């Protein structure tokens, strides 16, 4: 039996993954099946990361390859809706332009079945509020690498409370500068410096 897409993703074999995705699509296979196989691969990578066999570098490589394979598949989905396990709105708050950790988290969250609305970096307070009102996510995520984000994160959460939008929403802060102190200050429900630990918290938030 030949190599699977999932295993090739685990091995960062980009020629195989991208070639196989393209060939099987051309042979009429449903994109949704190929996406499931890619998701299985990301699941295996997650297991290796959690057991300490894989590091951030491996997560980064596989997340990049997953994203590139999805770029081939998503236009072919047409009206097929992907099954999702919840919606996440995420961004790096105003005053911070870092996005490596956020981008990795977005990819692993998509691969796990979340619908992810990434607002990008340097996101103003108002944009977070608009997105929560528009998307109605179960989870709002802040990604932060510098201390200037503390104030806008807290402002967003305070305004969500004021507008009555906080009650059914879980808030998670992530990034190198965050810890329990930051979580308390912001009024968040979760905190992480690790994309996969953050994903596990998000799964718990939607009761999976």
């Amino acid at each position, binding site marked *: 039996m030949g190599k699977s897409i999932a295993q090739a993703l685990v091995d960062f074999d980009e020629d195989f993954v991208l070639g196989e995705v393209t060939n099987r699509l051309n042979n009429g296979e449903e994109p949704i099946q190929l996406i499931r196989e890619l998701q299985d691969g990301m699941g295996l990578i997650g297991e290796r990361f959690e057991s300490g066999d894989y590091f951030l*570098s491996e997560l980064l490589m596989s997340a990049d390859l997953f994203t590139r394979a999805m770029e081939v598949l998503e236009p072919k989905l047409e009206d097929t809706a992907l099954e999702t396990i919840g919606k996440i709105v995420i961004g790096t708050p105003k*005053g911070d332009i870092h996005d490596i950790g956020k981008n990795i988290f977005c990819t692993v969250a998509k691969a796990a079945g979340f619908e992810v609305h990434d607002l990008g970096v340097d996101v103003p307070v108002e944009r977070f509020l608009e997105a929560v009102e528009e998307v109605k996510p179960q989870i709002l995520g802040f990604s932060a690498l*510098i201390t200037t984000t503390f104030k806008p994160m807290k402002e967003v959460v305070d305004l969500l409370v004021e507008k009555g939008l906080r009650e059914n929403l879980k808030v998670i802060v992530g990034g190198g500068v965050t810890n329990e102190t930051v979580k308390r*200050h912001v009024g968040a429900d979760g905190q992480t410096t690790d994309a996969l630990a953050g994903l596990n918290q998000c799964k718990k938030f939607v009761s999976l």
Partner: protein
Amino acid sequence: MPEETMTAWERMEAAVKLKPLDRIPCAPLMDIYFPARYKGIPIVEAMRDWKKGFYSIVDIFEEVSGWDGMILPGYSIPATPHVYSGIGLGKNLFPGLELGKDEPVQFQEREVLKREDYDDIINLGWNNFKVKHKDRFNPQNEERIIRWTQRQMEKYKYEIEFWKTRGVRSLCGAMVSSPLMTLSTSRSLLQITKDIYQIPDKLEAVMEAMMDDFISDTIEAARISGEPGVFLVMERGGSFYYPLKIYERFEYPHMKRMVEAFAAEGFITVMHLDQDYTLNLPYFKDLPPKMVVAELDSCTDIFKAKEVLKGHMCIAGDVPAALSSLGTPEEVEEYCKKLIDVVGKDGGFILSTGCTCPVECRMENFKVIIETTRTYYPH
């Protein structure tokens, strides 16, 4: 209250050399962001007006009745007379230009250096490569760059000499990044990681070709400064990012050679270790004893570092940025005392901020960091 029997510099030296101390020294890693914010000076103004920026640090120093030493003297960039020595390849965004007027400078993750550049680096060496491609990396004319470099050197020397008038010195007079850190910040984390997995032999050759210039330029800058050490920036090579087999090939050998070369010239190395280096700590025991400071930012387990590196090298750090920005003075004091109790036992410890003192640091917390070293020494 410990009785002070040493000068500030004697205390710093004793900590680095693992000798007995009258109390733990304090040396915050300080730039202009926190002082300017505290003084109500927009960061853009503190950066454009060098004296205003530098003296905002001095004002903080005076307000807290001083501290024992600087890690780096201020915020001017250490340089050598070489035209392009102060110019890096990474892309920074600046307040008043790409960022708001009161925001700190931020590094933009971007692929400035391409994989196609590697052959040139291998064939020319690092400095000649930068000269060949100078217009790509810095489009300003040579005369302007020379003037900028000269001004930087003058300001840097002024900062170093100024601190001596206040009875403190800077541990470091030169600054350099490891080859992996340099390439990662100029290629981007993703692209350098692909290089590691896809073209490891070539990448190794590139790093090898960078080494001589990195070492000789840094030693020259340190000599010009007259200060005892080199600030070696590493973030992207540790166990937060890479497994040990990658560290062993692409970070550790170069870092070790640099530290040994600096030590051979009598210079100590302050390893600026951002992010988590906990799994890498055992390797540091192979570096020249009492010639290195492991400067930690609170991501590495500093208590584990003490356990592993005790009797071999000094540790500096690591009041977390979140704690100094959001914690209460009581929480900061409790953490500083724990550091002094555990990491400060038997000396070999400099209490410092975790990475640079954050822009949002509360003055009352900063005072507690300084004050705790003056009032608490149970050993």
